[in-house]
Structures are given as structure tokens and as C-alpha cells.
């Protein structure tokens, strides 16, 4: 059984990362749209897949947060990636299968996956 002591240990470990991050100012944010439209379209498994992939690869300096309706409900689930010093990248019609590619290509290698972006979808 899991105990809260384990959680305390994880927190200590992530705290160190947070300090490092603040110093290096290299925090990447992954933001998932989580309003009715996003949830109905499958945003929660997408968020879960990001958590899973980031943990599997042991990536640091990345937080996964949520926002409300972004306003283009027909393209949900929508995910925005904010890398420091770069333009925001908006991914649309997301599913759990697309997440792995975004994590490896974009979050690890800093090359956005153009074919999943809103620009590509609206072409």
C-alpha cells in the first residue's frame, strides 16, 4: 500500500527541481483545455497521457496545467505548449496516441509536431 510518506519524499524531490527551474528560467508549460467541450472530446485521457509520458522519460522542468474553453470547441481536445522564449504552439484534435510524439519531438527535442498544430488543421 502507498503511504503519504512516499508522497512527502516525491515532493522534496520535485521541490529541488523547482528551485533549479526558477534559477534556470527554463520551465515549459503544457496547458490542456478542460471545459465541457474539451472533457467531452477526450481531454482528460490526453492530460493523463502527458503525465504518463513525462514521468516515463523522467523529464524535468515541465508542468502540466489546465485552462477553460479556448473558444474553438470543434477542434478539442486542444493543448498549448509554452516554451520559454518561444511562440506558443497550439495542438488540436488531440488524442493519447499523439501525445508520445509531441513529448519526444517537441518537449525533448524542441521541434514542434507541425501536422498536429491548429495552423495545419485550418489549412
Amino acid at each position: 500500500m502507498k503511504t503519504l510518506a512516499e508522497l512527502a519524499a516525491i515532493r522534496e524531490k520535485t521541490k529541488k527541481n523547482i528551485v533549479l527551474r526558477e534559477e534556470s528560467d527554463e520551465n515549459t508549460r503544457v496547458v490542456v483545455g478542460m471545459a465541457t467541450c474539451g472533457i467531452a472530446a477526450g481531454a482528460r485521457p490526453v492530460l493523463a497521457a502527458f503525465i504518463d509520458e513525462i514521468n516515463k522519460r523522467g523529464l524535468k522542468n515541465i508542468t502540466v496545467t489546465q485552462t477553460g474553453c479556448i473558444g474553438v470547441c470543434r477542434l478539442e481536445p486542444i493543448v498549448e505548449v509554452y516554451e520559454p522564449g518561444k511562440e506558443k504552439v497550439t495542438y488540436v484534435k488531440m488524442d493519447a496516441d499523439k501525445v508520445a510524439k509531441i513529448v519526444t519531438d517537441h518537449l525533448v527535442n524542441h521541434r514542434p509536431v507541425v501536422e498536429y498544430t491548429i495552423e495545419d488543421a485550418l489549412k
Partner: protein
Amino acid sequence: MKELSLHILDIAQNSVKAGATEIKILVDEQPAENALRIVIEDNGSGMDKAFLERVTDPFTTTRTTRKVGLGIPLFKQAAELTGGKFEITSEVGVGTKVTAQFVYDSIDRMPLGDMPFTITTLLGSKPGIEWIYEHKYGKNTFTFSSREIIRQIGDIDYNQPEIVEWIAQYISEQLQNLYGEV
């Protein structure tokens, strides 16, 4: 929505937006009585009578990005499809309580789905909210309280992937216990 847990996620977001500082989620499964009850209760801003009367209408919303709000109508429909009931009570300045009652064995009752990830998603939605998640199955009860976590180990960042994963696994372990699968 494909799962009741997604409705819970969606409806509890309303509580977050209503500025609640304490949000309680109850999932009460009583197969012997053929009943499943979901209650989401908050101490947020509440709604006045006029808004409350219109709130199950899809063309009522507080959102500004468009003019329809489907969260509550969809949840109501999910309950009523099973032959169950749906009720919202609210008072301005006090809070809101949403109760959905389902017929447990109805073929139209959606599965409960992934409660652990609904809870971790809610925990990460906005800092500073006290979450209480109580889940009953027959005579067994499991309670998850964010205040209890703070009391025992202090404040934590619910947007850290490692922490999210740990809490989801913790809740899922506790639910397995609750269902007596361990």
C-alpha cells in the same frame, strides 16, 4: 461524455469557477438498493433563483466564449436516462449542491470511469481549494481529503507530473480496496 467521472470533472469545474474554497464530491454506490448517487457540493458564490431556474437549459451559461452551456444539461440527461433524478439547490453567497441519482443496473447508466484521474485533474485545476472526495460502496467508505494531505505532509504542487501520478495510483489502490478486489 462517456463516463460519469467526466461529468463529475465537468460539474466540479463550475464550483471552481464559482470561487469555492471547499468542494465535496460524494460517490455513493449501493448496488443492493440498485442506486448510485453523485453529489457535488461547494461553498462558492451560488446562484440566484432566476438563474437556478434556467441553469438546466442548454442556452444558459456563464461562459463568455460562446452562448451555450452543456455541462449541467448533459449530467441531468445522464441521470434521467436511467430513470433517476437530478436536483440542484443553491443560495447566493452560500454555495451550490448538485445531486444526481442513477438507477444502478440501468443499461443506460454510464460506467463510473476513471475517478482517480478526475480527482487529480481537479486538484490541479486551481491552487488553494480544499477537496473532499468520499466514495461509498455498500458499507465501505473511502475518503480523500486534500486538507488531510496538507496536515500530514504540508502543501504540494498538484501540477507536478510525479505527484499527479502518485495520487492517481493511491486513489486507485484505495478504490480497489473499497470494492474488495485486493
